């Protein structure tokens, strides 16, 4: 049985879509708990992230792995005995800040966070500060991700952080920023807590915040 599960980790890490489908089906028919299968799939996604960091995989492979994972989850999630929310590692609000409509980076982070077991509230692009604040207040998220690809979005990001302070939520939520124009210096300058260099770094930050 454990060999099969190791095979599942490898199948996902190797982007073997057919192999993942087969192994998930076989594991279920052999009586494996869906939660245990999801754990193995998550380990496969972690390996994909590592290969991305090593530049063995690129964006195409990252997105494809998320697609394979999500397809497997459509089979597994309804079979979980516990409610999906009970299994979440934490809630993260993700959005592209006001004035910026780029969604590629944000969407990749959303996919990887979901694959890593987080519940993500995706508030979309061109999101005003108040939408971030309301999403956190409603979801009890402990982490906010603000994506931006434009330097002119920096002011909107600062306003969003200020809005959390005004809503008395700043000490209840950590804020990470990411996007090609961001740097650690920008992060510090605008008063965010974390800078995610890429999508896999964003997942690492979420794990750190939600551990």
């Amino acid at each position, binding site marked *: 049985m454990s060999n099969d599960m190791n095979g599942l980790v490898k199948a996902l890490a190797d982007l073997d879509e057919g192999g993942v489908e087969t192994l998930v089906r076989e594991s279920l028919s052999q009586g494996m708990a869906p939660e245990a299968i999801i754990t193995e799939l998550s380990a496969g996604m972690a390996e994909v992230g590592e290969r991305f960091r090593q530049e063995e995989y690129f*964006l195409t*492979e990252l*997105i494809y792995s998320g697609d394979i994972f999500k397809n497997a989850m459509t089979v597994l999630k309804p079979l979980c005995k516990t409610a999906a929310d009970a299994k979440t590692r934490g809630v993260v609000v993700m959005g592209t800040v006001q*004035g910026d409509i*780029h*969604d*590629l980076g944000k969407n990749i982070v959303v996919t990887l966070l979901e694959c890593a077991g987080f519940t993500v509230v995706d508030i979309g692009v061109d999101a005003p500060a108040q939408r971030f604040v309301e999403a956190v207040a409603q979801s009890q998220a402990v982490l906010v991700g603000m994506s931006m690809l*434009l*330097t*002119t979005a920096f002011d909107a990001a600062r306003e969003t952080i200020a809005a959390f302070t005004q809503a008395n939520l700043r000490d209840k939520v950590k804020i990470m920023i990411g996007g090609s124009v961001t740097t650690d210096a920008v992060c510090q300058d605008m008063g965010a807590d974390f800078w995610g260099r890429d999508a896999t770094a964003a997942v690492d930050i979420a794990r750190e915040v939600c551990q």
Partner: protein
Amino acid sequence: MPIMTCPASALTGIGIIDMVTNGQAQFACIEAFAKRYSSLAVHTGMDLSVEAEAFGCGVKFSAHEVPTVNQRVMAGAEDIDSLTVPAVGSGRTAEYLRAGRLVRQAISDRPVLGGCIGPFSLAGRLMDTNALMLALIKHVPAVHALLEKCTTFLIDYAKSFKADGLDGIIVAEPMAGLLAPERCEIFSSRYVARLVDAVQDQGFSVILHNCGRTTRLVGSMAGTGARGLHFGNAVNMCDIAPQIPADRLFLGNIDPVGILRQASPEDVARSVTQLLEDMQAYPNFVLSTGCDIPPGTPLENIDAFFQALNRFNGIP
């Protein structure tokens, strides 16, 4: 040769929206920069929404940023067959061609370059990017059909710049920088090579720009035959330079945001001098920025860029 158009607002008082929708206004900005700076060449604006708009995409305009595609014409691979290739001159391409013509007429002391997006990057604007990335694995023939349409249009567009007497074109293919080397070759470089074959000759050069993680893509980029290869600040030029064939120019890669937009003139000078020192052994290197300089960049920093270059070259 920094890539810059938008910061000319500070010189001309022309707003970004005018600059990207009116060829006359764009010309005025390019001319203002040409008068102020002794760049190796001048170029029309780098605006990666123009061609997608010609195909029917929606575009968001802003007084503070270059336009961005906000509405795709295709949701997925199933829509590719029905996509129609527009005529050159559709949308704002007519204005960009007009800008090129006006610059050509006014500036004769240095090369004038047009600009267009690369085939794969255009595909990534016509179709949802996530869907395109998945299609590279799941719907390969459909992606090639899409790239055929993109390349057909871009060749015609580049030929129009050439017919107007320009000296070359900068082909911006940043999305190819997201791909593994073998996919970059299959889905980008082979199509760029066709564009190069169609227009490049002794009087017209193609410069291929890719501001992604290109360290492992240099061979594929060079294989397109483009006479110039332009790199972004995601790479270390010391890793790039040894891979460049001696008969090509290569350009790059001062950080347009972290250095030119946000740092001090002293930081700009330091970065420029360091890069020039690093590239001293390569006579085919041309100092440039890693991508287009964003709106709002202080002119003092652009001044510092050229002053550091002149100082390095012993020009008073």
